[in-house]
């Protein structure tokens, strides 16, 4: 069966769990550093190691990050909460339990709004967001005989973000995960890097006959290291489920892993022996009581979020949806744009510069806009110079921009002056030049005079050559049409 056939007959039900590693300086329950990529087992105190006698102490930054995300997703923030222990044995879990939140997640409800390709908007409801700690890392493929354990990650703070089973297509899933990642980055609480595992995604998927009210057997997919693979894995699973159902074969309740090269999923473990995690309230940490003041303080610290910026750009600044989307895709780009428009109201031009010349430099140099050399203020000055006819657009684009790249600390007006690129505003001088060109090119002048308008380009070229490009094209057109009458 192909995807289209399947979707004619079946309905997809997907719920997504995202684990976001928070970018706090230290771990969730001790002062060990939270850093990715360090030498294995170097960021470990006796607390991370779970030595006898050690106790957790809560890093309040985690709470702040969680509340920020909760506010951004319009969740209900829980006022009275505690931590719970989730008990299970694994070699990368030195305490034998994970400190998490079971009964009282910090956020309940809320939603993420996504836009689909067909223009439709959809609100994906969240079930909960809770705070917990990461486990260490088991490395199975480095040593042929042993599993190696790196406990640097043990105790790194996580937010687990859980949706309701309301996602109805792989595209919605793609958009949802993209949107969450964008939010995490805007809030500056997680770098959202799926390849490094700082954002991890588990997909719960089932299908049922269209119109049915009873969910099909659920399967969990893990090991999705990109947003694209979230979409691919769902597309693969839909067909796999449908083909099994068509053959009357029962779908196993299992956890599957996604194999990116082949685009397929493989069974990892069955869920028959369901874990009993024996949750109970963590006695080593005090319950947390949040005041309204604290929540309000967090609200006042919220940065502008992408959907708010999108609205502002389309309604207030009059940009197109396309432009607004491009600008808000990355927080850094939006920040740069915001700085540029502090000094200019030509929003469209600011957008064009950023999404055009600047973006291509970023791509060429493979850098982020934070590392881009030219200060935003100089870009707004450049825009102003063009708008005031101090420099022609083509000269700005072809010459001055490069010069600004070479001398990022010097303002564009000084650079233009130094290079004699300022438009010749002295019309008398320009008139002389034009007259001379008419005299030097009698036959073209004759044809132009008799109405061959396409020769405007020829004269423009000559004049630009003579003025080294500094003439303002608008003025040139005006003047040649005026002067030709005298010939």
């Amino acid at each position, binding site marked *: 069966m192909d995807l289209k056939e399947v979707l004619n007959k079946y309905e997809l039900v997907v719920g997504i769990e995202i684990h976001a590693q928070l970018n706090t300086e230290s771990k969730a329950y001790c002062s060990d550093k939270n850093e990715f990529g360090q030498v294995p087992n170097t960021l470990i105190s*006796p607390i991370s190691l779970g030595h006898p006698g050690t106790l957790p102490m809560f890093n309040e930054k985690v709470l702040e990050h969680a509340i920020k995300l909760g506010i951004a997703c319009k969740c209900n923030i829980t006022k009275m909460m505690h931590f719970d222990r989730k008990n299970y*044995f*694994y070699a990368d879990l030195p305490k*034998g339990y994970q400190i998490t939140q079971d009964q009282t997640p910090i956020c309940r409800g809320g939603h993420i709004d996504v836009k689909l390709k067909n223009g439709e908007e959809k609100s994906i409801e969240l079930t909960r967001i809770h705070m917990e700690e990461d486990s260490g890392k088991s490395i199975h493929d480095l040593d042929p005989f042993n*599993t190696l354990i790196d406990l640097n990650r043990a105790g790194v703070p996580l937010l687990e973000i859980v949706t309701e089973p309301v996602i109805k297509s792989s595209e919605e899933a793609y958009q949802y995960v993209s949107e969450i990642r964008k939010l995490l980055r805007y809030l500056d609480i997680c770098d959202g890097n799926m390849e490094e595992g700082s954002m991890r995604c588990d997909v719960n998927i089932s299908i049922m006959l269209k119109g049915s009210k009873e969910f099909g057997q659920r399967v969990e997919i893990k090991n999705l290291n990109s947003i694209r693979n979230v979409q691919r894995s769902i597309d693969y699973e839909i067909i796999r489920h449908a083909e099994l159902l068509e053959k009357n074969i029962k779908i196993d309740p299992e956890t599957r892993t996604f194999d990116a090269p082949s685009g397929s999923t493989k069974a990892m473990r069955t869920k028959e022996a369901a874990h*009993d995690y024996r949750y*109970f309230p963590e006695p*080593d940490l005090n319950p947390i009581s949040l005041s309204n003041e604290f929540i309000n303080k967090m609200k006042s610290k919220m940065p502008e979020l992408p959907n708010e910026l999108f609205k502002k750009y389309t309604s207030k600044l009059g940009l197109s949806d396309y432009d607004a989307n491009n600008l808000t895709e990355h927080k850094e780009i939006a920040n740069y744009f915001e700085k540029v428009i502090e000094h200019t109201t030509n929003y469209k031009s600011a957008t064009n510069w950023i999404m055009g010349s600047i973006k291509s430099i970023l791509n060429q140099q493979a850098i982020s806009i934070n590392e881009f050399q030219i200060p935003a203020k100089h870009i707004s000055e450049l825009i102003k110079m063009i708008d005031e006819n101090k420099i022609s657009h083509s000269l700005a684009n072809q010459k001055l921009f490069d010069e600004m790249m070479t001398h990022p600390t010097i303002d564009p007006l000084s650079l233009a002056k130094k290079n004699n690129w300022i438009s010749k505003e002295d019309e008398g001088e320009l008139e002389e030049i034009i007259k001379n060109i008419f005299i030097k090119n009698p036959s073209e002048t004759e044809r132009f005079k008799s109405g061959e308008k396409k020769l405007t380009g020829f004269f423009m070229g000559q004049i630009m050559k003579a003025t080294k490009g500094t003439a303002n094209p608008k003025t040139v057109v005006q003047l040649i049409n005026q002067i030709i009458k005298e010939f």
Partner: protein
Amino acid sequence: MKTFTSLQQIQPLLINGDLSLEELVTSYLSKIEFSKTNSFIEVFGEEALLKAKEVSSKIKHGSQGLLAGMVIGIKDNLCYKNHKSSGASKILENFESIFSATAIERLINEDAIIIGRLNCDEFAMGSSNEKSIYGPTLNPHNHSKVPGGSSGGSAAAVSEGLCLASLGSDTGGSIRQPASFCGVIGVKPSYGRISRYGLFAYASSFDQIGAFTHSIDDAALMISIMSGQDEFDSTTSKRNPPSKGPVFPKSKLSIAVPKDYLNFQGLDTEIKEKFFLDIEKLKTLGHKINYVDFPFIKHIVPNYYVLTTAEACSNLARYDGAHFGFRSSESKDIESTYLSTRTKGFGIEVKRRIMLGNFVLSAGYYDAYFSKAQKVRRLIKNNTKDILENNDFILTPTTPKTAFNLGEINDPIDMYLQDIFTVHANLTGMPAISVPLKRHSNKMPYGYQIMTNNFEEDLMFNTAKYLTEHLKQS
């Protein structure tokens, strides 16, 4: 050398040069060597002598700490940097801690000398000190009897004069019951008074570190020094530590005596009769006795065992052979490592409690056991708070009986019932002290327990001193 029973006897002699600290330590070391009670698991002899030298020179310069001259033994479930600490369990055989418990650090900062680690029941689970891989500790008053537990070694060592004071831990009576059995003072402070950082967790919401001494002043001083907020234990209280010594006793005390305790079937007749005589004496001294209802007596031990085993099964999950301590030689893969290490590494009582704890937390039983027990705990707390709103303290015998014979109690439930008067303070978090006031006609000592409201240690110590003056049987 003379046997000292308080730091107040020792310090003036050290200061005026009539006693050398090195000699004092040497005399403790030789007593330990000749002791037959099996109290010490390991002696830190050389180190103790080195520290004695260091403290001596401080004394000469007048720069010594408050505990200069105090020689202390520590229970084998406390972390002491670069020293072994095993919880008297095979599973931590040869485990060395890489940090010191906050309580120990604070004592050392005041120049206490740590002389060795003391025997106890495995992971502090027991009431007789018979459940130790190092074998039982014997009661110094009668070697055929148990010293009580779980801090049996700590009680016996102080009782026998092998050290001036010792540290224990108390989850359900593990300090007060052995103190009563061995005839010494045993204090469990309020929950949150002393940092638990560096104490092997048994039941986190019950555990407290406490002290054994001969004198109430020493106990108050030690508790005061160990008390106070610790960034490494979020459950420590921000309150100021209690005073370093008892202040003035109240002239008229209002004393709560729970009738239901005295009606407990297992209470020894002689203990009960003497207790009533003492009550009369207190009345004649002008104090008010209020017989109060405590209807939870039947539930108190079951409630305690549901909650403590639940916490224990989780706290003891880290002993799995993967990262530290004992690993079974039969470990082949992760599952066999867990199974074999934990089967061989833990003793029977620890395994029993781990299984009980996992049972009461498991799906389908959580509400019936754990959740219900939490509610009962709340009722017990509220009831006890009410009693202590109207009374200065609750007075009971510490234990229903005097020390029993080694091997006498084999039924776990009978053993659990030994804690019937002491678990109350752990369920409520309140401070309690066992004061060695009495001697039974069977020649064994026993104590009375004073329990005050949360963080009223000062009142507790004052009362202990007052009762010692008036009720102590010579």
